[in-house]
């Protein structure tokens, strides 16, 4: 999801040893000073912490409650806006999930039913069939069947309504912004800077201000979702437009296109398949956010999972989670098939009906059937399958039979590994931590990177979130280490098995498109609430990019060099250590970077299982509607992520450059 984080950090690393030595010596001097010097070098003094969060909170509160623009109170404007965007969501929910009601009080009756599951499911299957053939239709049928039989249909449709409306708005807005950025470099620079920060700001932070401005309910969720899902659409639109071959544009200009004709008849159609890739990402991010936004009243499947997490009712949580997976698979596969189709045009075969006509006929037919046969409208409760009990039994069985093992593991991990690291980081003098960061930045990137990282770190210090930030750091460190230790070897192994790679990519794709919330469930099932669960969930989520980059990196080694090694009689291990690892190193660094970015986005969600880090601060702020705290703590997470991103990107660029120099000498 963070694949598109790109930033121009100059890779002008100091190449001679001397400056490196100097910065290391400066750090040593700092250590001595910390040891013998005043306490404020170790513990952040009160005078260094500014009540930024309060100020920001007050400002936004004032803006939302008191301010007025041209005589109109902002409060009224936002509420009006909320009303306005509530309409399409309400419309979609009525159409897909709830239908219309009449009567009042206890006398409420459904006067018009929503579209039946038969109609909607059929639409999905027919579309899948047309776009992706029989196998895709089969997959979609399974998913629809699952949702119907397990009684998740209605909630899934609430989620789907939110997704559809949000995607529509995000796609339109993203396309417009993308076109604008494509046409003007200035606009592009601005949007790129904003989008880069937006992609690292944790998901919850979007919820806090929108909650304040738009009130609890679907419209706040929608605004947050659109904001969250916008960046990939903008980014991919710009990339797609830039990738249109120069000759194709020249062909349009030679044909005498005006600027508008060029855009709509040449550039956009040619770029369509790449824009569709952006749309796919937007859809998946939207789904992720809609699930999370259940917290502020989006409802749907996410709400079931959250409820289950709160009550520790793992069974129904897992069921709803699997519903989310089913929905995610359908949306992802169908939109990917559509993107593939967009790559080149295709005529209908003789006798083939246009898709929209098929769908229209189907909807009418299915509605008539549903009217005659109630079963097709609403799957009867009596025939529902529930596995909640099964899962709950499984959990209690695990807890009975495996309790000792799991608990021993948990205690061991907590006491022997996690606590020491946590305490070490918590006790580490803040000046030394920042000093070490600065040295790392100096070694990998040079002075500009030093300034960049140190100012980001100082932001955390000044806003008073250093403690929770260190707690986040400790969770991230462990989870990323685990993810890399698990993921890279798997990736390396897959690299030597080309036949498995297609399947592996499919699995990795699916893992990466699953909404983050889903990952909490198995962790909680095994390890209950706490840091261990958090780390397990984060690791599970972050392992996919590690595997992927491990695989790609290892496949990159030039063939000729491998053959040379084989001839000179290297053993497999020797080839790995002397040849493959060094060649793959820059790619692996980028892989670690991606793993860290994924870990950060999951870490926030993991606050739901009771961590004590920045994510928890955001969550608390969200529950108490403390806007300032929510935003600032969120920005601190972004700062951490940006520091890691800057350092690793510089390191990767650095090794690549050094290698280039060596080769060209």
């Amino acid at each position: 999801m963070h694949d598109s984080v790109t930033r121009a950090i100059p890779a002008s690393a100091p190449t001679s040893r001397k400056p490196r030595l100097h910065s290391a010596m400066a750090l040593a001097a700092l250590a001595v000073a910390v040891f013998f010097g005043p306490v404020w070098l170790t513990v952040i003094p009160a005078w260094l912490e500014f009540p930024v969060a309060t100020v920001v909170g007050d400002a936004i509160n004032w803006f939302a409650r008191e301010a007025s623009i041209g005589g109109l109170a902002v409060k009224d404007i936002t509420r009006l806006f909320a009303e306005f965007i509530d309409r399409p969501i309400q419309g979609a929910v009525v159409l897909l999930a709830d239908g219309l009601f009449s009567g009042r009080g206890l006398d409420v009756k459904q006067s018009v039913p929503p579209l039946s599951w038969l109609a909607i499911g059929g639409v999905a299957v027919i579309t899948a069939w047309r776009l992706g053939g029989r196998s895709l239709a089969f997959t979609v049928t399974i998913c629809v069947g699952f949702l119907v039989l397990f009684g998740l249909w209605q909630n899934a449709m609430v989620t789907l309504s939110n997704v559809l409306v949000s995607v529509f708005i995000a796609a339109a807005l993203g396309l417009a912004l993308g076109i604008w950025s494509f046409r003007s470099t200035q606009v592009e620079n601005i949007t790129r800077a904003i989008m880069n920060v937006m992609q690292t700001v944790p998901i919850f932070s979007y919820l806090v201000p929108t909650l304040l401005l738009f009130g609890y309910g679907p419209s706040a969720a929608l605004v947050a979702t659109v904001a969250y899902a916008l960046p990939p659409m903008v980014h991919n639109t710009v990339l797609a437009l830039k990738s249109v071959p120069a000759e194709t544009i020249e062909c349009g200009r030679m044909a005498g296109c005006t600027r508008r004709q060029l855009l709509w008849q040449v550039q956009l159609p040619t770029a369509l398949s790449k824009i569709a890739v952006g749309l796919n990402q937007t859809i998946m991010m939207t789904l992720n956010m809609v699930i999370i936004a259940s917290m502020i009243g989006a409802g749907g499947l996410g709400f079931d999972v959250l409820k289950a997490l709160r009550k520790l009712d793992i069974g129904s949580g897992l069921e709803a989670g699997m519903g989310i997976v089913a929905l995610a698979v359908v949306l992802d596969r169908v939109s990917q098939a559509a993107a593939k189709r967009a790559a080149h045009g295709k005529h209908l075969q003789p006798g083939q009906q246009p898709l929209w006509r098929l769908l229209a006929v189907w909807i009418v037919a299915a509605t008539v059937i549903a009217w005659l046969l109630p079963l097709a409208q609403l799957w009867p409760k009596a025939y529902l399958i529930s596995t909640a009990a099964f899962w709950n039994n499984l959990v209690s069985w695990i807890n009975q039979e495996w309790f000792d093992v799991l608990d021993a593991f948990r205690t061991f991990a907590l006491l022997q590994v996690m606590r020491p690291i946590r305490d070490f980081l918590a006790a580490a003098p803040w000046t030394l931590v920042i000093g070490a960061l600065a040295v790392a930045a100096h070694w990998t990137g040079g002075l500009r990177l030093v300034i960049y990282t140190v100012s980001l770190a100082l932001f955390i210090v000044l806003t008073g979130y250093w403690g929770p930030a260190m707690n986040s750091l400790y969770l991230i460190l462990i989870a990323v280490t685990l993810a890399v230790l698990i993921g890279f070897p798997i990736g390396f192994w897959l690299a030597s098995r080309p036949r498995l790679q297609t399947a592996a990519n499919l699995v990795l794709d699916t893992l990466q498109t699953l909404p983050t919330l889903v990952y909490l469930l198995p962790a909680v099932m095994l390890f209950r609430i706490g840091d261990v669960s958090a780390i397990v969930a984060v690791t599970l989520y972050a392992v996919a990019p590690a595997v992927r980059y491990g695989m790609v990196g290892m496949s990159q080694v030039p063939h000729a060099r491998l053959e040379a090694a084989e001839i000179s009689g290297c053993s497999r291990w020797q080839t790995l250590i002397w040849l493959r690892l060094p060649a793959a190193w820059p790619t692996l660094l980028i892989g670690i970077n991606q793993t860290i970015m994924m870990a950060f986005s999951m870490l926030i969600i993991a606050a739901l299982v009771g961590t004590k880090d920045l994510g928890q601060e955001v969550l608390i702020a969200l529950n108490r509607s403390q806007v300032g705290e929510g935003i600032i703590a969120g920005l601190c997470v972004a700062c951490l992520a940006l520091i890691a991103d800057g350092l690793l990107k510089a390191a990767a660029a650095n090794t690549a450059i050094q290698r280039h120099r060596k080769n060209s000498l």
Partner: protein
Amino acid sequence: MTSIPGTEAQHGRQREVIVQCRNLWKVFGATKHAFERADGAHLSVEDFTRKGWTAAVRNASFDVHRAEVFVIMGLSGSGKSTIVRCLSRLIEPTTGQVQVEGQDLLAASESELIKTRRSKMGMVFQHFALLPNRDVLGNVAFPLQVQGVDRTTREARAAEMISLVGLEGRENHFPDELSGGQQQRIGIARSLATDPSLWFLDEPFSALDPLIRADLQDELIRLQSQLHKTVVFITHDLDEAIKIADRIAIMDQGQIVQIGSPADLILNPANDYVARFTRNVHRSRVISVDTVLRETTPSDTTAGPAVRPTERIADVASLVVESEHPVAVLHPHADTVAGYIDREKFVRVLAGLDPQ
């Protein structure tokens, strides 16, 4: 060299000028103002490099005549694409003049430019530049659609063009369902759909396999004999240039170093660069029979075959060798005998030597 009056016309020297290009400069990285302030016309290549500019076209002047095939050739990076794009202002020239059918192109406003491109120009691209979302018919009809021609008219015209390039029956295929050669045929059909008088082709066959390339070269020659367009053709392949050109301009590092007929370039190269280019071309392929002509002697009979003065020596070699009688050369526009082929000179040319 014996020359027959009238063959000049072949080289188009007396025809109407369609494109007139004078002192054209294109310096990437420099504005017109910066270029003039730096007195760019007198800078050397190194000076440009030092300023961070790329002089892609340097002081190019040439005319293209009606219905002539004017080939620009040179090595990769010599500025061929840039020059041809300056002629349609796809690339804005730095300074200089370009006139197309008397219109000062560089003074034209955006809307005038669009009008000129729509009505007078067609272009074929190296990598075809087809629109992937349109089928063959839609691609060929595209320039007409841009002009707002109604659907039936433009599709009828497009179908006509498609059959002209021999692709009838494939109207509803999409570009990625066709071979490279077929795709370029669509490119050609599209560029002709608006019936332009000026036809630009930028290395149209470079991306194709040799056999298909030869096919399309023949196709181009056939089309040109039918349509008589004014053609500016870019290539880096001298064989191709010789096969289709009336005149060739040779470019070296942005400068046009020589303009002339294929025979001119080979017999009288202007400098070493041109000479090295043309060294490996067999003379018999460019020299026409009028250069190996001798006066009629009383012993000549008209019993042998007769050839036109413009035919290339390589093309008539077998005829001349197998004929028992002297081969007559006719006047260019009449069926009267101008003289006979001098066997000795003829053999010299076949042996790769100068006729004298």
